[in-house]
């Protein structure tokens, strides 16, 4: 104990002499509120987090920036973005307002993924957030060395709290691996993969809907046949992006008595943190496949 205190004292002494350590709270801006949530869980009392995108009714891909966001990013010491073209607006703001002591955590770069990665919804991959948590703890510790062990402990606690979700995924996989599913967008594809589901919707079709371009008639009728011919057990659609076309597929699934579940691009609020949100989505999938129950809203 005494040694620990001494260590902290030394670290803080070092910090005091190098580039100004943060005295009070670290301003953090996260592009999407799921990263903001994790940033707050790791930073705890030492951070104040702003998430740019937290409206579950809008499509993050087409987000347009307001001047107040640019101001907040300019003042932030830690900025988290997803990358893979998902939040390019943030890259533009960052290059417009340089700040040598600011730390930018780009999740795509953290995971070592190329720009050509087809599916940008990285937070649905169960291996992503543990790495984000550790990287955040390191960034915070560099800015506020006095609380380094606090951040590390928070990161370990966060990673441990992912277990119920991971267990739900592996239990689904052991019982229902190979379950055929249809999707409208690649939002939850990484999670469906981890759950061992077989996504029968062609990726090109999912990408067309994601990018807001009209899919080819061949793909539309293929997707329709997944429901009319009962080739899938569940339709997983993007709850945040619905238009007449996706509504058509939802109706087709419903009239074929195929359960429908809505997944979210950004964390639904209030009432959820990242862990409970991910767990809720696997639970929806489980209920759909096991009991034929639809869950359109979390």
């Amino acid at each position, binding site marked *: 104990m005494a040694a620990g205190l001494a260590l902290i004292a030394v670290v803080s002494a070092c910090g005091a002499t190098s580039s100004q350590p943060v005295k009070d709270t670290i301003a953090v801006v996260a592009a999407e509120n799921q990263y903001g949530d994790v940033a707050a869980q790791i930073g705890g009392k030492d951070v104040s987090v702003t998430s740019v995108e937290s409206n579950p009714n809008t499509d993050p891909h087409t987000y347009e920036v307001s001047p107040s966001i640019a101001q907040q990013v300019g003042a932030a010491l830690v900025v988290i973005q997803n990358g893979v073209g998902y939040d390019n607006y943030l890259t533009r703001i960052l290059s417009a307002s340089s700040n040598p002591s600011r730390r930018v955590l780009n999740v795509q770069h953290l995971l070592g993924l190329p720009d050509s990665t087809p599916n940008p919804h990285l937070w649905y991959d169960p291996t992503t957030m543990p790495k984000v948590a550790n990287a955040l703890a390191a960034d915070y510790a560099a800015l506020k060395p006095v609380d380094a062990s606090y951040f590390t402990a928070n990161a370990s606690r966060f990673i441990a709290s992912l277990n119920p979700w991971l267990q739900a995924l592996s239990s689904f996989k052991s019982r229902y691996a190979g379950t055929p599913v249809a999707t409208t967008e690649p939002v939850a594809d990484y999670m469906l993969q981890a759950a061992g589901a077989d996504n029968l919707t062609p990726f090109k079709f999912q990408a067309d809907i994601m990018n807001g371009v009209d899919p080819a*008639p061949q793909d539309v009728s293929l997707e329709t046949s997944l429901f009319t011919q009962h080739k899938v057990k569940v339709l997983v659609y993007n709850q945040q992006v619905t238009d007449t076309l996706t509504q058509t597929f939802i109706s087709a699934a419903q009239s074929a008595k195929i359960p429908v579940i809505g997944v979210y691009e950004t964390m639904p609020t209030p009432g959820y943190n990242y862990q409970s949100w991910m767990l809720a989505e696997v639970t929806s999938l489980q209920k759909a496949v096991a009991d034929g129950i639809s869950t359109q809203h979390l």
Partner: protein
Amino acid sequence: MPGFLSPLIEPGFFSNLPVQTALVVGGVVAVVSGIVGTFTVMRGQSFAGHSLADIGTAGGSAAFVLGISPLFGFVAMNLMAAGVMEWIGIRRPRGRDLATGIVLGAALGLAALFLYLDTTASSTTGATVNVLFGSIFTLPASMVPFIAIFSVVAAAIVLVMYRPLVLTSISADLAIAQGIRVRLVGIGYLVALALAVSLSAVTIGAILSTALLIGPAATALRITNRTGRAAAIAAGIGVVATWLGVLLAYDSYYWFPNGGGWPVSFFVVTLIFLVYLLSQLRFRGRSAAQRRSTAAQAR
């Protein structure tokens, strides 16, 4: 399907539900656009027709905010705009472009607002592309009856007032001398025009719908100077261009650069343009004669 057609038509074309809807809707809309467009060209109101189509973008994008089908937005906005244009003076050839331009500017401002709201406040990724360039393959089958109703109304207006419409389109002075209520005919025509551009906005998009309105009609009026025959030819050119466009879009599934097909509106508009160019070459001499005869008629 006869065997010799198989290299031209990708398998599954006729059994594909989105294609069937596109062929029916595209065909109906092309007929209405051809008929109404013939009068648009004769009346020299191409700019008004194009502007009405652009003005429709405000209605189409507002429909996304409200969560209703863009068709209703196009129709409501275009009817309103036609009313305003008539009110502030589309009848006078001199102030007409000005009146049209002012309404157009105001409407595009609204479209900018609604498209912004679509992307920031509601969940509609595809709104911009859908409104501007159309989405004929994603039209729900439930919209077909509404498209049919609007089409019948637009065609009926033109047929009911066919003779006075022809007369006022050739010469307003002559029509007045014959006791025709020129303004009433003009209003009826504007309603038909508003419906026609709304319908084609749904198939090939708001900013391209003018191509379907003007292109076939302009070509037809080069081939013949008889109004009824021109309207029929225009409708025919529109239908062939739309159907071929749908076929090419379907066939383009495996084309450059990454598969998935090229947009229908590109093919339709390009085909209409090519037909117009051909008619320019073929009927160049004739059109000069036609212009003289139209001028003679006008006097």
